[in-house]
């Protein structure tokens, strides 16, 4: 009886398809996810709408509205310390933007609510020699930096709401940075302190070799 080597055929075809998907996977997945977009909002295709929760320490910081404060300090004339209620009382900005992780996953159409950085800076009056912002997370030792110019982009937000609800613990409660043009690692979660500094330092991931300017599609080895 004739025999065919189907086993190795299946094996090699699957391996070839899998390896080649390293070049086409993201494009196809984006296309599929766009095409079924309206359905996906009802029945998420992947858990939690595609979010993953990345942390660098042993546990996630807990948020207590009674004791939480946001410190604005560094090279400023009038340092400021806000509690949660004072934060919510600031002028509110809303936006819908896409979140890109440097590892390749993307969550589209995230609705954010929060405060524009400019509104805060106006209250603390930065020194003229301050050109960057240091964002310090309650998740020690996570921090990152933006230049004042980057922080002034129209869709940069200090977000305390996500998809119409207060920011959850997993997403950085109660306050996180959102800069859609840059990869997620610049979008510091669990913000506790913002400092005005003369120039940018190296953030947590930058110290491990990631790019300082994490523009989506044009940094960290992409789009070169």
């Amino acid at each position, binding site marked *: *009886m*004739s*025999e*065919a*080597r*189907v*086993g*190795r055929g*299946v*094996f*090699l075809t*699957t*391996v070839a398809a*899998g*390896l080649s*998907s*390293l*070049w*086409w*996977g*993201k494009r196809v*997945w984006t296309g599929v996810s766009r095409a079924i977009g309206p359905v996906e909002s009802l029945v998420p295709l*992947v*858990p*939690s709408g595609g*979010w*993953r*929760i*990345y*942390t*660098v*320490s*042993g*546990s*996630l910081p807990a948020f207590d509205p009674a004791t939480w404060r946001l410190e604005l300090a560094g090279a400023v004339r009038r340092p400021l310390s806000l509690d949660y209620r004072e934060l919510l009382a600031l002028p509110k900005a809303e936006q819908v933007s896409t979140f890109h992780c*440097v*590892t*390749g*996953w993307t969550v589209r159409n995230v609705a954010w609510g929060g405060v524009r950085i400019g509104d805060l800076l106006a209250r603390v009056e930065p020194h003229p020699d301050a050109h960057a912002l240091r964002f310090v997370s309650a998740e020690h030792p996570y921090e990152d930096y933006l230049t004042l110019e980057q922080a002034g982009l129209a869709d940069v937000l200090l977000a305390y709401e996500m998809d119409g609800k207060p920011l959850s*613990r*997993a997403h950085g409660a109660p306050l996180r940075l959102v800069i859609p043009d840059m990869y997620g690692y610049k979008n510091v979660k669990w913000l506790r302190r913002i400092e005005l500094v003369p120039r940018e330092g190296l953030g947590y991931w930058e110290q*491990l*070799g990631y790019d300082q300017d994490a523009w989506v599609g044009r940094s*960290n*080895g*992409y789009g070169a």
Partner: protein
Amino acid sequence: MSRYVRRFSRTERVLHWANALGFFTLLGSGLVLYLPSLAVAVGRRPLVKDIHFWSGIGWVVLLCLVVLAGDRRGILRTARELDRFDRDDLRFLLARRPAPQGRFNAGQKLNAALTAAFTLLFFVSGMLLWLGERDTRFRLESTVILHDGLMYAALVLLAGHLYLALFHPATRHALRGITLGTVREDWARRHHAKWAPR
């Protein structure tokens, strides 16, 4: 009293369970890394990442050790057996008609080929994720999609495998073969008619 015949060698059985152990360790630690609800509940991400990474390395090393320390020729023979599909195999798969099967039926051969391919792809994409975190030259935007997609595909395959091995009345006797090595002779004749047990 029914007679028993040997279906799987010790090397085959150890290889199967070593693979299962590695798979479930990686699935468990991987899901903690992947699912936000588990990630939040468990925390300790750097530790879970280390566990996942070293389980992956350990898995591949273990599989190689089992083959090297075990019956290498026997495993090669088994691989050839799994590779070759005859007309009855194709009829069994494509026409879904009963056709006499060898020691492995065509579905088992297919499962073996896919599982082997998934293992290799899991390993390659996992190494790329690990390396990419350390060096941008290894970072590809689709690696994480491949690694996650493989998890879903492997889960579908596993669900079918577990159903047939644990629940389906006609096939669940095979579980005895992969644990103890032997199966009932009458069962072997019925389900694997072309296999001549030695």
